[in-house]
C-alpha cells in the first residue's frame, strides 16, 4: 500500500525495463532521436549563423559551422540599438509581473480550494472565462481602459493587466485541493487566523508550484509582444521583443544584426530555464500531499 500511494511522478520503472526487447529499444530510441534532430536543427542553424560574419551569411556553399567565427553581429546589435535599456525594461516587467502573479494567484487559488461559498464558485467560472476570452479579443477597449488609468506609455501598463491569470490560479487551486483539510483544521484548533495559516503554512507547502508558476510567468512576460507594442510608444521604454521586431520590420533586414539581437534576447530565459529546469519538467500538479 505504501508503494501504491506514492505520487505517480516517483514511479519511474515501467514493465518494459526487462531485458530481451532490444529491437524495440533501438526502434523507439532512433525515432525519438530523429525527432530530436528535426527539432534541434532550426535553432542550431540559427545560433551557428549568428557567429558568421555578415559577408559569409549569404555566400554559397552554406556551411553549418562558421568558417570565420565572429561576434560582430552581437556587438553591432548592442551598439546600434539601445539593447541595454531593452533588457532592463523587459527585466523590470517580467520580474514585477511574476512576483505579483504569484502572490495574487496563490491567494485566489487557495481561496477557491479551501472555502466554499457560492460567490467563490462564480468567481472561479469568471477566472476560467478569462482563458476562453483572452485580451486579444478586447484589444481596443482594453487599451482605452489602460490609457484612462494613466498607464499608457508606462511599464506598469504592461504589468498590471497581466497579473490575473487563470493558469496560475488553477495551478494553485489544484495543488491546495490536494493539501489535506486536516492541516487547516489543526491550524484552526491551534488558534491560527485564516490569513496567517495561508501565509505561514500553506504558502511554504506550495513552493514547487510557486517555482513552476514563476518560470511560466517570467517566460510569458519576457516573450510578450502585442500588448507591449500597443502600450509603449517611447523607444526608451521598449522591451526586447519590440526591439527585435523593429529590426525585422525594416525595409532591408540587416540579418547580421538581427541574428545577434535575437540570440541575445533569448540568453536570460535559457539560463533561467537551465537552472530551474526540474520545476518545469516535473510540473506534475498532482504530486502534492495526498490524503
Amino acid at each position: 500500500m505504501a508503494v501504491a500511494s506514492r505520487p505517480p511522478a516517483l514511479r519511474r520503472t515501467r514493465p518494459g525495463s526487462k531485458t530481451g526487447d532490444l529491437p524495440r529499444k533501438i526502434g523507439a530510441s532512433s525515432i525519438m532521436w530523429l525527432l530530436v534532430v528535426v527539432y534541434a536543427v532550426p535553432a542550431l542553424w540559427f545560433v551557428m549563423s549568428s557567429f558568421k560574419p555578415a559577408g559569409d551569411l549569404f555566400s554559397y556553399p552554406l556551411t553549418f559551422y562558421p568558417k570565420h567565427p565572429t561576434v560582430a553581429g552581437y556587438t553591432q546589435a548592442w551598439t546600434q540599438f539601445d539593447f541595454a535599456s531593452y533588457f532592463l525594461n523587459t527585466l523590470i516587467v517580467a520580474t514585477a509581473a511574476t512576483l505579483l502573479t504569484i502572490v495574487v494567484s496563490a491567494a485566489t487559488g487557495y481561496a477557491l480550494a479551501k472555502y466554499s461559498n457560492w460567490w467563490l464558485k462564480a468567481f472561479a467560472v469568471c477566472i476560467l472565462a478569462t482563458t476562453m476570452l483572452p485580451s486579444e479579443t478586447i484589444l481596443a477597449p482594453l487599451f482605452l481602459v489602460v490609457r484612462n488609468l494613466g498607464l499608457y506609455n508606462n511599464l506598469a501598463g504592461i504589468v498590471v493587466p497581466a497579473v490575473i491569470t487563470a493558469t496560475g490560479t488553477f495551478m494553485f487551486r489544484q495543488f491546495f485541493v490536494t493539501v489535506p483539510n486536516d492541516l487547516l483544521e489543526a491550524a484552526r484548533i491551534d488558534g491560527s487566523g485564516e490569513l496567517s495559516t495561508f501565509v505561514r503554512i500553506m504558502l511554504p507547502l506550495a513552493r514547487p508550484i510557486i517555482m513552476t508558476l514563476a518560470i511560466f510567468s517570467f517566460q510569458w512576460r519576457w516573450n510578450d509582444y502585442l500588448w507591449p507594442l500597443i502600450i509603449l510608444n517611447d523607444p526608451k521604454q521598449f522591451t526586447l521583443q519590440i526591439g527585435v521586431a523593429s529590426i525585422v520590420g525594416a525595409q532591408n533586414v540587416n540579418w547580421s544584426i538581427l541574428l545577434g539581437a535575437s540570440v541575445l534576447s533569448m540568453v536570460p530565459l535559457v539560463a533561467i530555464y537551465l537552472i530551474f529546469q526540474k520545476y518545469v519538467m516535473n510540473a506534475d500538479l498532482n504530486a502534492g500531499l495526498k490524503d
Partner: protein
Amino acid sequence: MVDSVRQPAAEPRSVPADGEEVRAKPRLWPRKRHNRYTGAPLLMISVNLLLFLLFFIWPAAIGLGYSFTSYTGVGSAPFVGLDNYQRLLNDPAFYSAMLRTVIYTGSIVPLSFVTSLGIAYLLVSPYTRGKPVARVVFFFPWLISPIIAGVIWRWLFGENFGLVNYIITELGGKAVPWQSNANLSLIVVIIAATWAGTAFNMLLFVAALKNVPISYYEAADLDGANAWQKFRRITLPAIAPTSFIVVLLSTLHTMKEYGLIVALNAGGPGTANNLIVQYIYTTGFKRAQIGYASAASFVLLLILMIIAFVQLMFNRRKGS
C-alpha cells in the same frame, strides 16, 4: 476547547453553530465543514477580483458600447448603430482574415496534438534511451518567443538565402517561393507554430501519461495485448481529460496568433495571410478605427465562445 474548534476566534462567520443541522439535510452535493468563512476568502480573491473587473468587465462593457460608434480614440464617439457590424460582414478583408485563421487553426491543432502526444509517449516510454537530453531539446522551443521563432523560420525558409532552399537547389530542385506564394508561406507558418507549440502540450501529455496506472498495462500484458491496442484502449481513454485541455487551449491560442506571423512574413505576401488579430490590430491601432475594431473584436470573441462551448459540450457528452 471544544467551542474553539467550532468557532475560530478571528473569523467572521455567516452561519454560526448550526453546521450540524445543515449537514443533516439531504443535499445535491456533500457540504464541507469549512464553508462558514467570508472575510478571509474575500480578501484573498480581492486583488484578482479588482483586476477582473478592471481589465475584463470594464473593457468588455465599453468595447460593446464603442462597437456601435465610429470612435477613433479621441474626441466624441458618434453613435452609428449596427453600421460597424454591417460593414464588417461586407468586408472581404475580414472574411479573408477569418478564413485564413480557420485554415491555420484547423491545421495546427491536429498536427500539434499528434506530434506532442507522440513525443510525450516516446519520452515516457521504457524503450527509449537518452530521455533527459531529448526532453531538453524538445522543450527548448518553449523558451523562444513568437517573434524570435518567426525570425528563426524566416532565416531557414528565406527564398534566396535560406537553408531549405539551398538544400533543395543542391539536390537539383528549383528554389521554392516560400515567401511569395500565399499558401506556401502559410505552410511555413504552420510548421513554425507546430515546432514552437509542441513543448507546452508535450509537458501536459507527459504528466498525464505518467499518471496512467501501471497495473492497467500489466493486466493488458497478461491478456496479450499489443502496443497499439494498449495505446488505443488504455492510454487514450486514460488521458482524455488532458487531450481535451490540449485541444481547447491550442485552439484558443492559435486563433489569436500574432507575433509569430509578424516576424515570419508579416502576414504576407501582401495581406494574404493576415490573421484575425492582425486585422483587428491594423484597423484599431494603425487606422485608429476603434469602434470598427471593437466590432471585429466582438465577432472574434463570439467565435471563441462558440468554439469553447462546442468543445465543452462535446467533452461532456463523451464523458457521460
